[in-house]
């Protein structure tokens, strides 16, 4: 873990780019500055958290991480450009170059750049707290184009289907999967935690990733854990009514659906009582000086209007939970946050401008908050999405694909590099299964197992959680996490 002051300086430097279109940076920093050093001192000694940033709809990462060497970019332009107003091919001169350390030498001769809305991520990459993992997707075993064409190696069912590939990314099985890999890790590690029921937490509804056998996925919103009115005080003026309400809500049930409804309600009641004193509040100068500051406002680059960044609000909620981790005796947590809108069959340019600006802002906000909490090296955020998309254009959008590029963020990341072989750009290449849908070079299980090893799973636990990892031989760790 880096010395506190050094990382503080880094944060300030990185944050100079925070002011998306010039708003909000200064008050945000002032709020952070008022957070007491005591908050950092309270960080638990052995704490690690994984945060899944899910991009629902299928992120078109052809426009998020671009190969800018002349051969690649000419091919990108040739396939993607429709040479009209709706064209989804970006001009090279607006892209944000990133300089990969290229420690793996797989991408010699390539050069890379990010979407123009990702200026903070560009800085995080330079500060080696962000890495790109190229062309990841669900696979059952290593697969090349010839095997795909001959159908000689099995592939995951229901490719290109939103709900099934969301589930496959999160649970290695299509819709209906009983356990996700985040939940399976939670099952293994929840006994380390003082409050085991808070091992897996979602800020965005039920997530297959967090489905577990013993652990549960707890849902918390930016309003925190809210109490049920009439439960801890009189119901319509009656103490007897309140007591009856508690028994009716929480009593045992034989009907399966009633039992599950009651179980969820029981957890809501019990964990609200726990979190009412153990979840950090939102920052307020007078009433909550130790709280987590609100994110700054984001400016929509297409309209110039301010937008409330719900994704950053979810990261704030996660940080408020993390700020209470020490008091609750938490040592391992898995979080799920979500941003939707990526199904860019049309209006791709405007949509990605907006969504990437939100992600860039939220990631940078979270990086700053974690630094203030002294937890930057303890928390790793990774991206996931239904699938990548076609390189070919349908005029102003793209269609469902398979492999895609992803980011991993945090102080424990071996950042500043592009991991995995970046695909050849074009159609009818050895990396293309049609219209520029990428045949994944890395499996989600390899990507996830690398995170799980950092998280503290043993090799045998990793084999349990990621049952097909053994099919990928010695490539059990992609190397993007510091040991």
């Amino acid at each position: 873990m880096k010395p506190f002051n050094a990382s503080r300086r880094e944060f300030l430097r990185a944050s100079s780019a925070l002011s998306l279109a010039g708003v909000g940076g200064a008050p945000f920093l002032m709020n952070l500055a008022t957070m007491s050093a005591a908050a950092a001192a309270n960080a638990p000694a052995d704490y690690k958290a994984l945060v899944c940033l899910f991009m629902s709809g299928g992120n078109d990462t052809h426009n998020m991480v671009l190969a800018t060497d002349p051969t690649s970019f000419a091919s990108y332009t040739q396939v993607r450009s429709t040479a009209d107003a709706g064209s989804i091919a970006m001009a090279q001169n607006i892209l944000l170059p990133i300089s990969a350390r290229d420690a793996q030498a797989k991408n010699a001769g390539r050069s890379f750049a990010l979407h123009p809305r990702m200026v903070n991520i560009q800085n995080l990459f330079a500060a080696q707290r962000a890495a790109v993992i190229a062309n990841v997707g669900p696979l059952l075993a290593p697969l090349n184009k010839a095997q795909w064409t001959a159908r000689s190696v099995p592939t995951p069912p229901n490719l290109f289907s939103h709900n099934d590939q969301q589930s496959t990314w999160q649970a290695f099985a299509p819709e209906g999967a009983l356990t996700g890999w985040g939940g399976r890790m939670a099952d293994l590690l929840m006994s380390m935690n003082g409050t085991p029921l808070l091992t897996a937490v979602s800020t965005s509804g039920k997530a297959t990733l967090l489905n577990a056998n013993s652990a549960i996925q707890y849902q918390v919103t930016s309003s925190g854990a809210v109490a049920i009115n009439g439960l801890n005080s009189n119901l319509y003026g009656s103490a007897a009514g309140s007591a009856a309400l508690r028994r009716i809500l929480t009593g045992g049930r034989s009907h399966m659906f009633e039992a599950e409804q009651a179980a969820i309600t029981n957890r809501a009641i019990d964990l609200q009582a726990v979190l009412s004193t153990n979840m950090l509040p939102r920052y307020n100068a007078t009433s909550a000086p130790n709280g987590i500051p609100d994110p700054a406002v984001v400016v929509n680059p297409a309209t110039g209007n301010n937008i409330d960044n719900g994704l950053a609000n979810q990261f704030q909620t996660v940080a408020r939970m993390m700020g209470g981790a020490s008091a609750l005796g938490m040592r391992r947590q898995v979080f799920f946050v979500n941003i939707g809108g990526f199904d860019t069959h049309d209006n791709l340019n405007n949509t990605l401008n907006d969504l990437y600006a939100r992600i860039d802002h939220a990631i940078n906000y979270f990086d700053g908050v974690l630094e203030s909490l002294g937890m930057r090296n303890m928390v790793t955020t990774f991206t996931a999405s239904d699938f990548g998309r076609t390189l070919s254009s349908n005029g102003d959008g793209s269609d469902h694909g398979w492999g895609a590029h992803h980011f991993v963020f945090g102080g424990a990341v071996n950042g500043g590099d592009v991991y995995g072989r970046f695909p050849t750009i074009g159609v009818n290449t050895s990396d293309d299964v049609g219209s520029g849908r990428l045949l994944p070079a890395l499996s989600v299980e390899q990507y996830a197992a690398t995170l799980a090893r950092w998280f503290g799973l043993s090799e045998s636990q990793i084999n349990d959680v990621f049952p097909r990892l053994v099919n990928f031989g010695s490539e059990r760790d992609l190397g993007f996490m510091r040991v």
Partner: protein
Amino acid sequence: MNPAFLRPARKLASLLALALTLAACGGGGGGSENDAGPQQPAAPVSKTEAARFLSQSTYGANEASINHLASVGYARWLDEQFSKPLSPFKAHIDRTIADYAAAGTGSVNTNDVWEAYWKQAIAGEDQLRARVAFALSQILVISAAGDSLGGRPRTVAGYYDVLQTHSFGNFRQLLNDVTLHPGMALYLTYMANRKESATRVPDENYAREIMQLFTIGLHQLNPDGTLKRDGSGNPIPTYTNEDVTGLAKVFTGWSWGGPDNSNSRFGGGTPDPNRDILPLQAYPNYASVSEKKFLGVTIAARSTATVADMQADLKLALDTLFNHPNVGPFVGRQLIQRLVTSNPSPAYVQRVAAAFANNGSGVRGDMKAVIRAVLLDNEARDANLASSTQFGKLREPVIRLAHWARAFNATSKSGTFMIQNLNNPISQLAQTPLFSPSVFNFFRPGYVPGGTAIGNAGLVAPELQITNEASVVGYLNFMNDAIRNGTGSGRDVLPNYAAEIALADDAAKLQARVDLLLTHGQLSAATRDEIINAIAAISIPKPAADGSTTNVDNARKNRVYTAIFLTMASPEYLVQK
């Protein structure tokens, strides 16, 4: 300021009309027993049976509808409902547009669609059509959440009217009108979809989702809805990605309706004033002419396309989907899930699918036959089957609110039922009609709650996908408040508890009435006793010395609130059985 207040004149007129309607039929929801025409003979059922049937077939029971259904029986009630005129949402939007125009200010938005929705749900006579249309809106999904339809309330309303119209029509015509509706074309991005060229491919969105979600699903099904399996035990896909790209070509060249099919109009120029509700039309200049292969069908390449060619291709595509053996079990199972139970037996699905395949007169896709099969099936009707620990479904939050409003004869101060966005999970209902986050609806028909006895038993529980530690609190706190204070913008929707207050001095009678209206008598004895005791614990004081009965009235009201809230909080209510 709520823009709805900009049109007081109409609101007043609507209020008067509503009052007259209420006076004429004694509270709404029931009686058209004097309708002329051929009818099934009356076949009376008990009040609890009637209330249970109404929970499956309407937005909820009230006293009048229970009494009416109990007297005429299911079959005749269905015939009565089939003959009710529909309540077009577009008419509400158009009236509102006219009001704004007369006022010289204001414009319609999605709130106006929700007003039409809640007016029908709470006060509409056409309850069966309304409930089936709502079910269809969760299968053939469009949503006002998002940019494509968020600013087009007239389009959303017009789309819902298509669903309403064909709720009692034929599924083939429904498919046609959905496909050609600008609401679907905008939502699934095939409006002005162009043929392939050297630099572009057709948009595949609709081709994929009409197969996966609207008609045949991902896997080949047996007639009972179970999966067919290959020799290795794996499910058999219904289509490949090549079928998607092939079918996508059929959905090229379709764009806005209007008086001509000029290139300008295709691209959005010279908009017709009614294009937001007019069916799409064919623009052959933009239609793919190359070979189209999908689902075993091949349309040969052409040198040029005509309007007639495009219409023939579309007909062939929709006929192919409609006649696929999956449609009956695929759609039938989902209709059962929306109305009756999350996990129907294969035999039940097969009976509904058989009705889809043939209505008895050789017609495929007759929705009335499908609805009868869903609601009159022994599995839906047998109260003994309902006592299984697996039967039934979690009630949708939106339907719980409508049920409360109907059961207690709620009225709208403005006449327009100003209930709006209800999405916030921690303070509202985590669900808003016509506002799902994607074409995959609020919840999936195949949602399996992991880590639960339900999932481990191999069962699905769609509505549990939006049920979590936040939403259970949001629902309880929302209803706690609504039951006492009414709901909607400016507390526009207010209940009428006169009948309940009249029983308030007798805890058991009050509880029994609320039990019939809300759970058709399905509360456990333990919960029933809890509620009766909680009611009785609120003592009814003597009138004050000055003769004022305010304290008595308040105590009676608190008894009513307690009876209703405890019932609606109970897991026995929340799971419709």
